[in-house]
């Protein structure tokens, strides 16, 4: 077991240190991935411990960003300067303050009420944002520059990645260590049976507030790191999409394990970055993936992997490999169909297409998709995604059926 742990540790260290040898834009993406991972981990603290679902976490992320930006500006204009590596701490503090105040209010009621209140506080921040220029900088936002400190000029993305990596490790270790503290143990009980906890004499409202504040603190830390990396922020950070991001990443990655959300954040940030030039529908695909995961794999990607490992242990690696191959092929086939249809719809409904049609005397011009021209009225164009859709469904159905005897044997 220790040998395996060592191996995992070496691999993790290798992955985390890899960006130091990547070209500039690769490092930028790696920094984004780290920040998203930290944010998702902080978000999932609330759910995994307390069973609380927040839909307004961009508020605390944004609080950290604005705190960091203002301090960086202060340093830039020659005021009292905090060394740049310590600025994320200020972001964490801003997150704590916002988290204590809003968390106290949001946790007055649990469950559904909590979800609604967090959503509304997110909207509140978005409504106040454009009204208060001194703090939020209005439409154009606030820009600043990283100031050198102790021989490091933070001019290159590699140095920024190093800074983010250190703080990521501190934040993640803090979140992981929190679970072992007495308060951390109690917050687990909060998610399981709050009534009983109250009967035992715990002040559950304060416990929930504390849990919320810790989650907000680390979210603020992540936000401050993004402010350092971007050197710019505006009130748009408070939009609903930014609050939805950690929810989607956490549950697609798998909320039941500690690292699941980080996996989701890393994968989705990376894919989102890769496809950002190719499609404008990435948010739609992310949403569809999220709905599919909630419906068919509530434990997320890491949950799926753990289940496959379990099946491999019971039914032998060959059966598991076969299932994984079938499932992957099914998902790929299904994804191709969905992407094809969505992109085709996007082109067909766009203004550019209508204009081409008008100049072409009402005929239907070809669709340009996947570096290929598809005749818009040809049956092949539409039978292909349809066949892919049916094939994907059949493969997934078959893979699911193959799993059943194994799982029923265990039950």
């Amino acid at each position, binding site marked *: 077991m220790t040998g395996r742990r060592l191996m995992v540790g070496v691999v993790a260290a290798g992955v985390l240190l890899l960006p130091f040898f990547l070209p500039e834009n690769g490092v930028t993406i790696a920094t984004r991935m780290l920040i998203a991972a930290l944010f998702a981990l902080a978000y999932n603290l609330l759910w995994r411990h307390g069973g609380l679902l927040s839909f307004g976490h961009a508020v605390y992320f944004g609080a950290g960003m604005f705190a960091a930006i203002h301090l960086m500006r202060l340093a830039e204009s020659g005021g009292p300067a905090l060394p740049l590596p310590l600025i994320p701490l200020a972001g964490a503090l801003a997150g704590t303050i916002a988290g204590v105040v809003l968390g106290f209010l949001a946790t007055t*009621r649990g469950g559904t009420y909590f979800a609604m209140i967090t959503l*509304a506080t997110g909207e509140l921040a978005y409504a106040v944002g454009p009204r208060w220029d*001194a703090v939020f900088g209005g439409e154009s936002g606030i820009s600043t520059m990283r100031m050198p400190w102790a021989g490091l000029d933070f001019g290159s993305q590699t140095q920024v990645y190093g800074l983010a990596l250190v703080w990521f490790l501190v934040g993640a270790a803090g979140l992981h260590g929190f679970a072992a503290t007495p308060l951390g143990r109690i917050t687990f009980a909060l998610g399981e049976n709050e009534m009983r906890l109250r009967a035992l004499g715990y002040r559950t409202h304060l416990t929930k507030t504390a849990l919320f504040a810790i989650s907000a603190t680390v979210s603020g830390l992540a936000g401050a790191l993004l402010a350092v990396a971007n050197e710019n922020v505006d009130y748009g950070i408070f939009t609903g999409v930014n609050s939805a991001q950690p929810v*989607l990443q956490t549950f697609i990655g798998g909320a039941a394990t500690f690292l699941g959300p980080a996996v989701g954040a890393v994968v989705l940030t990376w894919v989102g970055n890769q496809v950002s030039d190719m499609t404008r529908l990435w948010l*739609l695909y992310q*949403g569809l993936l999220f*709905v599919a995961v*909630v419906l068919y794999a509530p434990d997320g990607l890491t949950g799926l992997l753990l289940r496959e490992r379990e099946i491999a242990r019971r039914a032998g690696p060959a059966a598991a490999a076969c299932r994984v191959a079938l499932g992957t092929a099914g998902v790929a086939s299904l994804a191709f169909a969905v992407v094809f249809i969505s992109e085709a719809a996007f082109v067909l409904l766009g203004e550019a297409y209508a204009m081409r049609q008008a100049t072409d005397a009402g005929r239907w011009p070809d669709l340009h998709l996947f570096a290929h021209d598809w005749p818009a009225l040809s049956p092949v164009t539409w039978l292909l995604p349809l066949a892919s859709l049916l094939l994907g469904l059949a493969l997934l159905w078959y893979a699911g059926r193959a799993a059943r005897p194994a799982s029923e044997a265990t039950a």
Partner: protein
Amino acid sequence: MQYVIASLLNGTVFGLLLFMVSAGLTLIFGMMGVLNFAHASFYMLGAYLGYSIGRITGFWPALLLAPLLVALLGAGLERWMLRRTHRHGHALELLLTFGVAFVINELVKLVYGPFAVDYRMPPALDVTAFRFYGLDYSAYRLFIGGVAIVMFVAILLLLRLTRVGLIVRAALSQPQMVEALGHDVPKVLMGVFAAGAGLAGLAGAVAGAFYPTGPTMANYLGSIVFVVVVVGGLGSLEGALVASLLIGLLTTFTVGLDWTLADLFGAFGLGPWASGLGGLFTLTLSSLSGSLPFLIMLLVLLIRPSGLFGERA
């Protein structure tokens, strides 16, 4: 005086619109314990479908067809998706509706583009209902209010006086007993869900022709509707009505008032000092109008966490 009367009327109409959307939300919650995040998306779909269908059939048939389509979508969501996640608990249901809302928003942007569409009221209603103090009052606003009132009375009568309402109310409190009596409770729940979605769709189809129909309308209204439901107390139809009117009136009244905290201090001779501080002290009430509902919600949570008409927590 003109301002007061105009605000009173507009606020009431906006409040009634809020009620049309929040009624379905609170009914569904009361019955199934599910907070439907996609509810405001149904409102938006109602507006967009009303626009699309209206271009083919004209305004009035669309006003009937769009809510029906939305109700069908709602039934599908309940039957094929929510029921599946039900055994995993409420949290997953919440996440599912959240995801569905996210997808609907993106789909609307995909189909209709990022800008508001030109959804118009029929010329028959695009007239002045009456004039007062030299101000024309649109007949369409009265129409919105009228639809909401008819809807409220219809729901109330349906729930209180008919046999369907009896079964629905019974299924609400004693689902197992109702099932034992031979009623198909899941079907009842699906019906209620579809009806709630249809009401939101109707509200959208009616209001979309007056307020802008754009891809942000779901997020904007959705958050205010949540505030209404929290303030009124989850599951309470009366609470939803009172809270809707309260918030509709308050937001409408404050939109035209440029009072500031500095003015308040001015009453005590501290005006110049407060103006000098700037920031929060010179923020006008009108600029805060959009955030006022949320402030009210926070206040209610502090004073009476269960909401105005909610049961004690």
